Structures are given as C-alpha cells and as structure tokens.
C-alpha cells in the first residue's frame, strides 16, 4: 500500500501511467481484431520509408510535442495558458508558404525565395505573435487566456488574409522534406527532438528553469529577490510563439500547403492537455518538461488509437474534452481535500480497529 502511494507520488507517474493505459488499450484492441497483440510496436520499412504505428505516433505527435514545450513554460510562469498557439501556427504557415510560393501562388512548384528565408519569416511571425501575447500578459497584466483570445481568432483570420482566402500550395521537394522524410527517417521527429534537446540544455545549463518556476510561484517575491518577473513572463510567451511557428512550418510542409482553416485546428487543446497529463499544475509554478513531452506523445497515441478504431476526426474532441475534465478535476483542491479526508478517515478507522483488537 505504501509502495503504491510512493509510486503515485512520483513526478512522472501520471504521464507514464496514461501512456501505459493507451498502450494496453491498443494491445487489447489488436488482439481482439485478430492481429498479434504486439503489432502496435512493429516497426518496418515500406517503400524505403520507416513505418509502423509507433513511428507514426512519434511522427504525427511532433507538432504537439513542440507546442507542449512552449505551453509548459507559459503555464509555469504565468499560471495561464496560451490558447492562440493553434491559430499562430496557421498564420506562420501562411506567411511561410506565401513567401515561398511568391508570384506563383496559390500553386507553386519552385521556391520563390530560399527555404531558410521562408522558415525564418515564419519564426519571426511567431516571435511577433508571442511578443504581442507576452506584452499584454506581462506588462499590462491582462489574464493570459483573455489576452491570447485576441490572437486565437485574429491570427487565423490574418492567415487567411495573407493567402487571399485560398490554400497556397508549395509542391516542392525541399520544402516537403521538413514534414516528410530525410532518407528513410521522418524529419518531424528529428525537428521535435532538436527542439526538446535545445530547450532542455538551456534549462539545464542556465538558471532559467528556476527563474520561470520562481516567477510562476510568487511573482512579487521573485521581483524583490532580484528577478525581472515581467520580462521572464514575456520571454516565455515569446518562446511559445516561436514553438508555434516551428510547429506551423512542419504542419504546412506535411501537407505542402498553407491551409489556414485547418492547420493547428484544436491543437491548443492538445498542447494544454499534454501539459496537464504531464503532471504539471495548470495553476503555474513547478514544471516538468519531460512529463509534458510524454504527455504530448500520449495524446497523439490516443488520437491515433481513436482513428484506428474508426472514430472520425470531428468526434475525437469529445473524448479529449472528457479526459481534460477528468484530469483537472483530479487536480482540483476540493476533490483533493475530499480524498485526503477519506483516506484520513480510513486511517483513523484502521487505527481504531487495531486499538480495539489490542
């Protein structure tokens, strides 16, 4: 009993447990449909490309994983979420594709400008969006969700405007590679891995992690202790914008087009969910990046599993919404207090029984 308690207290318990649950569901489903139960883990090479459900999840989950990095920082530092990430993805993708397509828009096969220019422009756009959100939250003290609500609608609409209400195609192999394959290996996995690596090295080698947590836990105390709380919050939103931009470019490259209506749609929920499943409190403060990343891939696993079982993509949000509510409800103080009281009661009952026995 005590060991179980210790296990559930561990930092990564929630995300790993969720992942485990999803894998179990997959194995049972596979077994029940007559496939070998390990088919989930099978990795092979088809048409010279790495394939398999596991690879597929890692590949498709890249965008959410990248978003989860930024979202984790934002949640930790400002105790709020950035709900504009999905729309910012669409906007950045639109900017990138529009630049790359140049005069040939909406259907281009040749790159009008070097690829790097398009990508940098997208990241620049992400910075602007992040700075806008960060400025409102950090310097004007507006609640994070309300501040990001503005770009939540506006960014997608501006994205449409950039593309003249059309889907801009860039059917170019170099561009396609970002969301496709390098040799036989899916590029998005590499990009996500690099992003995760860079951020974790920065967190490890600088005091940024402590700064962000400190600001998230107690803004005014951090200020007195010499941290620039406002700037820290601003930087987190900025980084979140950059993450959204990278995810946007990957998403655009995957479909070799900028479809402002659909890129990053509902992805803000996935990103927030990833942070929550990762065992991070949405109330800010302490964070655990590894948890968020595992959470991100868990969500992708859930999505893939649902598609696998024939649930349509339009219906999928229902299940995700239920999962969100369950997770936040478990974290809610009144529910926690309820369980604590119950376990205390049980403990006192137990001790009472022991006393009676003695």
């Amino acid at each position, binding site marked *: 009993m005590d060991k179980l308690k210790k296990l559930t207290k561990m930092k990564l318990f929630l995300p790993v447990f969720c992942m485990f649950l999803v894998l179990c569901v997959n194995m049972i489903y596979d077994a029940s449909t007559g496939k070998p139960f390990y088919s989930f883990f099978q990795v092979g090479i088809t048409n010279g490309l790495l394939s398999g459900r596991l690879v597929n999840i890692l590949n498709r989950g890249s965008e959410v994983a990248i978003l989860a990095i930024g979202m984790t920082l934002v949640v930790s530092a400002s105790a709020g979420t950035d709900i504009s990430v999905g729309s910012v993805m669409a906007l950045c993708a639109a900017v990138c594709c529009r630049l790359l397509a140049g005069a040939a828009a909406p259907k281009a096969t040749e790159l009008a400008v070097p690829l790097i220019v398009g990508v940098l422009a997208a990241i620049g756009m992400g910075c602007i969006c992040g700075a806008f959100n960060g400025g409102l939250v950090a310097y004007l003290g507006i609640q994070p969700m309300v501040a990001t609500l503005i770009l939540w609608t506006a960014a997608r609409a501006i994205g449409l405007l950039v593309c003249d209400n059309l889907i801009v195609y860039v059917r170019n192999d170099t561009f396609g590679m970002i969301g496709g394959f390098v040799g036989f290996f899916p590029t998005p996995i590499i990009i996500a891995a690099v992003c995760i690596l860079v951020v974790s090295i920065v967190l490890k080698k600088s*005091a940024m992690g402590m700064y962000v*947590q*400190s600001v998230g836990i107690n803004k005014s105390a951090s200020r007195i202790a010499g*941290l620039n709380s406002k700037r820290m919050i601003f930087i987190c939103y900025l980084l979140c914008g950059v993450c959204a931009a990278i995810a946007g470019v990957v998403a655009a490259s995957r479909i070799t087009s900028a479809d402002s209506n659909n890129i990053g749609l509902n992805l803000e929920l996935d990103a927030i969910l990833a942070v929550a499943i990762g065992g991070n409190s949405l109330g800010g403060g302490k964070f655990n990046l590894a948890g968020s990343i595992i959470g991100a891939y868990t969500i992708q696993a859930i999505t893939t599993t649902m598609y696998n079982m024939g649930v349509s993509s339009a219906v999928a949000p229902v299940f995700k919404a239920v999962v969100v509510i369950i997770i936040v409800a478990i974290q809610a103080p009144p529910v926690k207090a309820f369980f604590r009281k119950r376990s205390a009661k049980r403990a006192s009952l137990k001790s009472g029984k022991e006393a009676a026995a003695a």
Partner: protein
Amino acid sequence: MEDGVVLTMRGISMTFPGVKALDNVDFTLRKGEIHALMGENGAGKSTLIKCLTGINDFEAGEIHVDGVEGPVKNHSTSDAQKVGVSTVYQEVNLCPNLSVAENLYIGREPLTPMHTIDRRAMNRKAKELTERLKINVDVTQNLENYSLAIQQMIAIARAVDMECKVLILDEPTSSLDDSEVEKLFGMMRDLKAQGVGIIFVTHFLEQVYAVCDRITVLRNGQLVGEYPIAELPRVKLVAAMMGKDFDDLAEIKPEGFEAHADAPVVIDAKGLSHKGTIKPFDLVLHKGEVIGLTGLLGSGRSELARTIYGADKAQTGTLKVKGEEVKISHPIGAIHLGMGLLPDDRKAEGIIGDLSVRENIILALQARQGMFKQMSRAKQEELADKYIDILQIKTASKETPVSQLSGGNQQKVILARWLATDPDFLILDEPTRGIDVGTKTEIQKLIIQLAGEGKSIMFISSEIEEMLRTCNRMAVLRDGAKVGELDGDLTQERVMAAIAGGADNG
C-alpha cells in the same frame, strides 16, 4: 449560562502544522461591555476570533452564545451571523463596485411583493442607518468612491444592523485618523449602551484604555488572564503581553555599541519620494550602523525602505550609495549595489513556497550573477548547508519545499538568501513578526552581530522595545513622511512621544 453573559468560550485548542496556536483558552464576554483582546503578534488573538466566526475549525473546547441552545460550532461567517456574532475586519470586506446601500443590505435586501429588490426602500433604510450612526455619505454612490475610513464605518454599520449580540472589531482603527477613531468610539459606546458585547482587538494601548471595560491577554496561544481595566495599568499590561522574555531581551547590546558618526557613509538619500506612499525624505546611514524606522502602522516605514531599495521606484530626489549617485529602477539594481530587502509580508513577497530551501537561499545570489551563469550544484548545496547550519534552520532537508517550514524558519531562509549575497546594506522589515520568542532573540542578536561586521542595517518593527535594544539611531515617521530622528539615549518615552508628534524630535 450566567446572567448577563453573551458569550463563553471554554478550553479552546487548535493546532496548525507544527504550532500549537491555541492551548486551552477561555474567554467570557458580558452584555454591554467592550472587551479588549490583547497579545503580541502570534499570540493567538486572530486564531481565537477565527474559531469563533467559523473560519478555523477548533479541535477542542466549547462555545456558548446567549440565547442559543447547546454548544455552538460555526462553519462559516454566515453561520456565525445567524447566532448573532458579527465581525468587522481590518481590511474592509465589502464590495467596492456596489453602492453603499447595497453593501449594507446585500444578502438581506428589502423585497417588493414581486420578490424583486425594493431599491427605494433599501436606499431609505440605508440613509436612516447611516444618519443614525452619523456617517456622512450618499448611499447611492459606489463604495469605491469613499475613503477607507468611511468604508470601515460602513462595514461596522452593516454588522450593527444585523441584530448582533457579539460584535468583533479586529484592528478596526489601523486606517483611521484621530477624529475618525473618536467617532468610532462614540459608535461603540452607543452600541454598548444597547447591550451589545464588543470584542475589540487592537495594538494601540491608548485606545484600549480609552474605551474598554475589561482586558483578556493571550501569549503564545495561552491565556494569561482576564482583568478589569482598573486593575491592569499600562505597564502591567505590557508585562503580561510580553511575559518573561521582556527581561531576556535586555542584555544583547554589547558594550561600545555606539553610533558611528565618523564611519563612512553607505546610504545618502536626499528628497527621495514615491507618490502616494512616502513624501520626500532625507536619510544618511553609516557603515556598521543599525537604524530603526519607527511609526505607527501605515506611517510609511516600509514604503521608505522600499523606495530606497527600488521595490517602489523613487520619483524624486537623489540617492548616493557609497558616495556615488545611482538610479535604481528595479530591485536587481539595488542588489548589484549590495543591498537586500527582507519584506514585511513573508508569504506574499518573501518565500517562493514550492521551491526548495536550497533554491530559496541561492535565489538572490543567482539573480545577481545573471540567468546564464548558473551556480554549480555543488556550490548551491554548499551555500545551503552553510546557512542552514549558521542560522540553525530547522528543515527535514535542503530539498524540502520552503512552504513546509514554520514561519520562523521561513524567515531565516529569506535572511539566509540575503546573507548569501554578502550585502553592505540590509533592510529588515518586520523580521520578527509572527515568530516564536526564541527565534526573535536570535534574529535580534544576529542584527547586532552583522552590524559589528561592518554591515549597515535598517530595522523596521512595530515593537518599540525590540528596536530600543538593537538600534543606534531611529528615524520617526508619521502619515507618510519622515518627521525626525532620535539618537543618543533611546528610551520608550522619547520614542512614543516622537511617534505621537510631541515637541521632542531629538
């Protein structure tokens, strides 16, 4: 229940994690009396009040209220109101965005036959009530348009109008000026005449003697005694509140601990001010000196310190640190200049609750080094161990979240945070508030020791005795302005007179 008694509390006990907040406390309130509840910070006054009003759950004991069968156990303030116990707190608990009349009657508005609010009747009743209590307001105006003093009176008016038997006034006079206090006392005497029992919590001794009939004194969560006002002169009251530690504190200033007029100047402020909190002031501080800031609550003590430190940005004046003129717009600037500030509100501005003791200790030093020059883990642990040892911080380990420590130990952690930066000038704002007596003495001794090492200290405390024992010099503040300085032989009488605004300003 005896005749003429409206409230009895018997054997009330309550523990907070690690601290016995109340230990078998009795309290009796009679009809038509004003009863002062006295004690130092952390004596258990507010805990006792909270047990009565249902905010805290007490563990043992019984409460009886006149006219209510059996023991009373309230679970919320509205429960308490139902049995006739109303409370007015120091911070006004009203809604600033509603009108005065609504604040008086919300939750029990007069209704029309259609069960809608009869605004006209409500305004009329509110007008009658405020006129009866001689509060000069337009009841249809939003509450936020009035000063805190008026808001406080509205809060009392609301409590009074609820047919209460027991009225608790928790530090109601902190934000009022003398004429307003007089008005409030008038109101209290009227209520007393009507048979209401009033519990009056305050730290202003004069006010106790001006209006109260009886005093109950608590110390460290225990009952010291209940006395009729005539039997407890001021000196005895102070002795009862402070207990034997009064003597303990006497001998901590070493021989030769004198003012350092010829030592180098560390801080030289001229005409510094922050709009709305502190008027322009001059202040000079020498190396190795302990200066005390004294004045009543809200006189601008903390604000003066915060303005020097840059926590509130100074809008006028010049500040010289070690002879060089500087501009500080943010605390980090002050830290680079060798300053440190231990803020008065430990929870809100001191500790970073969920971070570990180690992280809390190294935070300011890390901030001074900059984000990208992280201290090695070994260095961090070395520092944490060092200060846990020096200050004898009682913690399970250096990785324990600081929120799990007791108040005194949290305070030591923040102190360690600043000592780690090896400051030249340290501001300690109420470092001993809400801390047990042993730790208090330790901190006071530390202050003397630090000054001996050549650091300059600015010490702010509500307890004059404490300051008399540690300071070389005192600056006196009143109504957001520095009104004078005292040096030489510091005595309680001189300080009191200076605070009250006598001629003797040293």
